[in-house]
């Protein structure tokens, strides 16, 4: 599947901003089933400095700073890429989930997966999350099977409601309200898995949207998306699950990167001086190319 993606973020400041420093995470990560053909980041006003690097989790990020006074900032990412369909392993033959509990009982400890079983800024393990997960994570059940069921249950039990939560709503409150948006569902599912000491990661990206039958696709009406990656053992590796849509991501999902939670992969993060009241607007367009 070929995509042309435009992600435009605009900040309008009520007051002059003398300087700002930012980290942008909008460049798709090169992974097995996704090839990035072009990626271009346009920043207005022109930054004094720009530097690309790879972060701790292996995501491609760009840092920039502006040191001349400005009252608005626009960051536009234009990406063309190709997504190939993912191989989905046979759920029944995946390892029993208990064998993947951290810390592993034998051999050398795998640091990357192990660290993703621990609490992070937005996600804390709780017995009640573990209890919710245990309904699907029964004794010796293959992990992929259990994860598919957990994904479906969250999709069933939780109501999609953008009004119910904000960016900083804690997982505990999401669980209580049983409502939220993709970020909340992903955080909750990760919290469930980590409460069982299983490694899970937060994946950030885009989703292809389908217009209602007979209607044209609305340009710029898309949004960033988030789902969950679960460690399924050394053979399968990491497998993604989308609790918002109850699917295993494939051709419709475009991956930007992953981390412990939203804080590690937030599309634009930054600090600035001055500024007064800030208005932010985001428009995302995920255009499938024939």
């Amino acid at each position, binding site marked *: 599947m070929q995509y042309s993606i435009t992600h435009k973020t605009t900040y309008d400041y009520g007051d002059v901003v003398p300087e700002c420093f930012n980290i942008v995470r909008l460049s798709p990560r090169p992974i097995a089933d996704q090839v990035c053909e072009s990626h271009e980041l346009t920043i207005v006003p022109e930054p004094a400095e720009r530097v690309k690097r790879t972060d701790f989790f292996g995501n491609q990020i760009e840092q920039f700073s502006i040191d001349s006074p400005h009252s608005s900032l626009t960051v536009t990412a234009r990406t063309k890429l190709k997504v190939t369909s993912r191989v989905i392993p046979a759920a029944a033959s995946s390892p029993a989930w208990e064998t993947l509990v951290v810390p592993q009982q034998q051999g050398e400890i795998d640091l990357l997966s192990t*660290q993703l079983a621990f609490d992070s800024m937005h996600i804390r393990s709780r017995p009640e999350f573990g209890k919710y997960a245990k309904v699907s994570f029964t004794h010796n059940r293959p992990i992929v099977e259990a994860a598919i069921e957990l994904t479906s249950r969250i999709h069933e039990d939780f109501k999609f409601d953008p009004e119910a939560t904000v960016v900083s709503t804690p997982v505990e409150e999401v669980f209580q309200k049983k409502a939220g948006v993709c970020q909340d569902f992903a955080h909750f599912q990760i919290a469930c898995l980590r409460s069982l000491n299983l490694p899970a990661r937060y994946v950030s990206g885009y989703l292809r949207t389908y217009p209602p039958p007979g209607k044209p696709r609305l340009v710029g009406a898309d949004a*960033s998306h988030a789902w969950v990656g679960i460690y399924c053992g050394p053979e399968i590796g990491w497998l993604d699950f989308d609790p918002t849509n109850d699917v295993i991501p494939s051709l419709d999902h475009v991956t930007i990167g992953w981390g412990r939670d939203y804080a590690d992969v*937030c599309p634009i993060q930054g600090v600035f001086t001055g500024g007064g009241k800030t208005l932010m607007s985001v428009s995302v367009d995920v255009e499938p190319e024939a």
Partner: protein
Amino acid sequence: MSDNPENTDDPNRPDQPPRSDGAGGDQPASRPNEGPTDPRPLGAQPVQAQRQSQGQFQQQLNQLQQQQQQRSATNPASSTIEPIGSGVLADYQPAGKGYDENVDQSGTPRPKWRQLDQLLGKVGAEGMERRRKQIRRMVHQNGIAFSSYGDPKDRERHLQLDPIPQIISSDEWSRIDSALKQRATLLNMILADLYGPGKLIADRVLPAEVLFDHPHHQVPYHGLPLPGDRHLHFYGAELFRSPSGEWWVVADRTDSPGGCGFALENRLAISRAFSNEYRKCNVRRLAPYFLAVREHLASLSTRNRDNPQIAILSAGIGSASYFEDSFLARYLGFTLVEAHDLVVRSGLLMLKTLEGLTPIDVLMRRQQGNYLDPLELGGGAPGVAGILQVVRDGNLVIASAPGSGLVESPVFMAFMPRICRALMGADLQMPGVATYWGGEADSLELILDTIDDLALLPAFRQRTVVGMPVSQRKLVDPQAMTRDERIELVRNDAAGWVAQERIVRSSTAVWKNGSMASGYLSMRSFLVAKDESWCSLSGGLSRVSDTPSELIHNPFQKGGTKDVWVVSSEPVEQVSLLNGVSGPLSAQQGGGFLSSRVAENLCWLGRYMERADATARMLRAVVLRLTGEVSPAESIELPALIRALAVEGRIDAGFAIKEISSQLPELDHGLAISSLDRSDPNSLRSLVERISSLAAQVRERLSADSWRIVQEISDDFNQCDAEQCDLTDLLELTSDLVLDLASFNGLISESMTRTHGFRFLNIGRRLERSLQMIALVKNCLLQKDVAESELLEAVLEIADSIMTYRSRYHANPQLPAVIDLLLSDEKNPRSLAFQLVELNNNLDSLPGNQDRTQFPVERRLAMDALHSIRMADTEQLGASHVQGKTSPLMELLGKVEELLPQVSTEVSNRFLVHSGPFNQMISESLPGPQ
């Protein structure tokens, strides 16, 4: 056993096992809680009784000599020792039953102590007392304080320095030195591993949660390209001596260990007070350590090897370590900076100076590292956005590296022996206090079983950072809990706690209330990285407390300290420390740039000094009239003066409304109360407090004598109780303040080099003195149609111009002449015109102002003010005022009064504005398509 009556009587304490003098060599380390758990002081009753009843040193000596002989008779071991009757330790009784630093179990001074014992014995009790006072004065004058300056609630927290040093023999020291070097190397290896390959976790030496559940673990610290893989540049070890005489580590300090500055200040005071004794004892110097710090930091610069720019990053005046930060900056000749003095530009870390941005190559980090970069680490604490990327680019070395504080958490103490074997293939040379982590099942069981014998500590050390929430674990005090509560605490959050064996520290002699007493000792040692290894401070900061087990991990806590002498049998290089200070170190003094923040503080210091001066003069004039020959009720000028004070907010406005006669007793008292009211920011006391706070922040720019004046001013006010203060006291207080400020100004103009710093101080002074003069004339002279000659005289007195007036006019003061003298006479150093001339001159000398083709805005504004005064016929204006037309003179003053704050704003905008606080960008919300 402590209720055995024999214990208190027998000085030889036969119930104690024999102990070796010094560390136990290769014998297995004994556990630190082997000693008695309740070592109540073995007060040798007869001696103390004598001391209290007689207080005569010689008589005491005689009796003590007798007692000593008795001791020798009952203890064959001590009979071989030479007579020690005249030593200072002769009447010393160790507080505890554990190891004593000064005497062995028979009460005989330890060999390392014999020489100093005799020397101090010769000093005598009175001599000791005199030197204790000298030391206290020196400590006070040097400002060895760890509280925030100018914070009224935090006063009088200067470190107490005991006149009796702690002595460590050079053999013993070499063992400590070697062990601490090993430990510092090990801690650096742990950091390099945890922020790098993570083998310790992969190989199961360290549980994963020790890193991943660590509240200060930050992923941006991973993979920073640090030269030589060196994270740790400064290491502080908190040590105590166990009952067996061995040194043990009780805590590691790896983030930004504090205390070496105090150690040096202590040494300066002790070596001055006991210069003779100090010289004779072959004490190793401290200066080589500080030279090593300099050399090491200079060697770190990758970008600028020939002339590296090194700065000390301080958390600022509000932080406990500010004194030490500024002391180190002065001593090492580095620039003292705070986070908001710094900015990242073109991939470099830049210091904002008056001349523009100057790159910094090496940052000695004294601010805790957790929130150093608000861009990558978040948080609301002050930091420098983008600084970690500068490190990644290899353009900056931060020492110690951000994140080095990770390993000072007590949880690591539980793993140190294991880690040492894993990483070094060796055992720790110096044991640590036995520590158990609740996160390990076996340890948890042990903790719960023996919880009475253990001290609970949060497993992860979380520093409190201004602006950040306090850790919940910090809010509970397990030591104050019942047994059940402690068990509950550990059960609920096992991985959050460690338990340490309760330690019994060694006792040591201290000089207290004119005689020898005893306390319990802990010692902090300091190391700095040097090439591939470490250099230790041959000495340290010892602390003494009254209880044997109290955990003192913080050198900034209130309490007593001791200088630590490492003594050699051979003479040490005969260079006194003082020569060391003014010799090699300051000869290299660089750090010539003036940061914008320091310039601003100097400007404000000048302003507050003038404001305090004007206020003190005005108050003094009022007090003189309240206590003078003429009855206050009949004083013609008094109501105008009181009104002027009230207008400026120096006293309660109520005093200005009522008749003087109707409120005399209240006025007397109220004047002092208002002037000394700390809660009122306009009171004289608040002005003085601002002066000490500002002076402390620019201390590296002030001479020692100038600093002393500020200290004295501050002391005068602190000693003054508002409730007790009568008019006579107030008169003295204000007169002293006027004099002190005059001497300060005198010292400044005689001894401060004419750098930009001097100019900013002067700009502040001239601005404020102008405004004060305008206020004086407006509030006192122009409020009535006719200013009586008494009032004119009072105003001349307040404006310090009465002598000039008299010598010039030989007549009763008249308004036109007074106005002329105070406003436009450029020869009168108190006149408004004189201030404006000086202001213009100083503005002219600011950076960049010489080569300009046109005058900068602030200069034009200041010239406008000066010209307005010069062009006005002030005498004529004064004369017209007498006829009741007040407006032209008021207008003129109003104009200048408006121009001056604009000058101040323009100067501030051009030279002083530094980056404001950072705001976090709002994040994109994720509705997520469905």
